[in-house]
């Protein structure tokens, strides 16, 4: 048990951070929701009711979708695009999906390779792209759910203000939907881009996200 906790510490700590931050968001969001309600002379809701509201779901999902978009793009773009000096990048000249031998697939699979790395055709293609396929699916699904919960919350606001409700398509074309989407995208793109560039010149001793402290600025794709 103790060993299992230790060997999975990174993913378990992030899961715990997620749970604590989500609980904090729920409490703060509930308070804010009820403050808004009392400002409009409306009744507040219980915490349980707030947790199953479109308003809370929308706030959660709009952040999920941008994070998964970020990782989807990062995984995909680093196949073909390089940044000289970055440990996050492959060395220039190695752009592309690489040979079967380098990727240890098909007849180049080894004894300890996953079974699907030995497969051919569609199964091999699916497994060869499974990380991006799953991350992209979560991105698109959470963006879709963001749009549905946002649409419901938007129409609730419209009703409160005595204005006409809109259809889902109408909400997809609304300024509210695109503002909530793009405000998350811009921060992700800046953070990823800066990580790629900063890691050329800056170091964190002991982190696999950084080059070794003594590695030259020009060395690319070397993780410490």
């Amino acid at each position, binding site marked *: 048990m103790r060993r299992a906790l230790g060997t999975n510490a990174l993913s378990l700590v992030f899961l715990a951070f997620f749970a604590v931050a989500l609980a904090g968001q729920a409490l703060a969001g509930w308070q804010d929701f009820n403050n808004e309600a009392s400002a409009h002379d409306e009744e507040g809701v219980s915490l349980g009711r707030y947790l199953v509201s479109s308003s809370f779901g929308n706030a959660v999902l709009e952040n999920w979708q941008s994070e998964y978009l970020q990782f989807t793009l990062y995984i995909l773009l680093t196949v073909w695009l390089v940044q000289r000096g970055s440990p996050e990048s492959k060395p220039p000249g190695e752009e592309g999906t690489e040979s079967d031998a380098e990727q240890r697939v098909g007849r180049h699979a080894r004894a300890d390779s996953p079974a699907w790395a030995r497969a051919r055709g569609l199964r091999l293609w699916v497994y060869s792209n499974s990380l991006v396929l799953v991350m992209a699916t979560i991105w698109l699904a959470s963006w879709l759910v963001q749009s549905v*919960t946002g649409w419901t919350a938007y129409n609730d606001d419209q009703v409160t203000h005595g204005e006409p409700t809109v259809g889902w398509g109408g909400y997809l074309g609304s300024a509210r939907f695109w503002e909530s989407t793009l405000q998350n995208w811009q921060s992700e793109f800046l953070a990823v881009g800066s990580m790629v560039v900063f890691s050329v010149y800056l170091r964190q001793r002991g982190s696999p996200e950084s080059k070794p402290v003594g590695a030259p600025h020009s060395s690319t794709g070397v993780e410490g």
Partner: protein
Amino acid sequence: VGAGGDQRSMRVVFVTYLLVIATGLVLYAAIGLAHH
């Protein structure tokens, strides 16, 4: 505990993350659609 236990615990965290994400997506999709 050995390689088998390590494999099991790795699978448990993998499936836990997938379940958390799937639960959030399905729950809020249902909640968002229930109003319409």
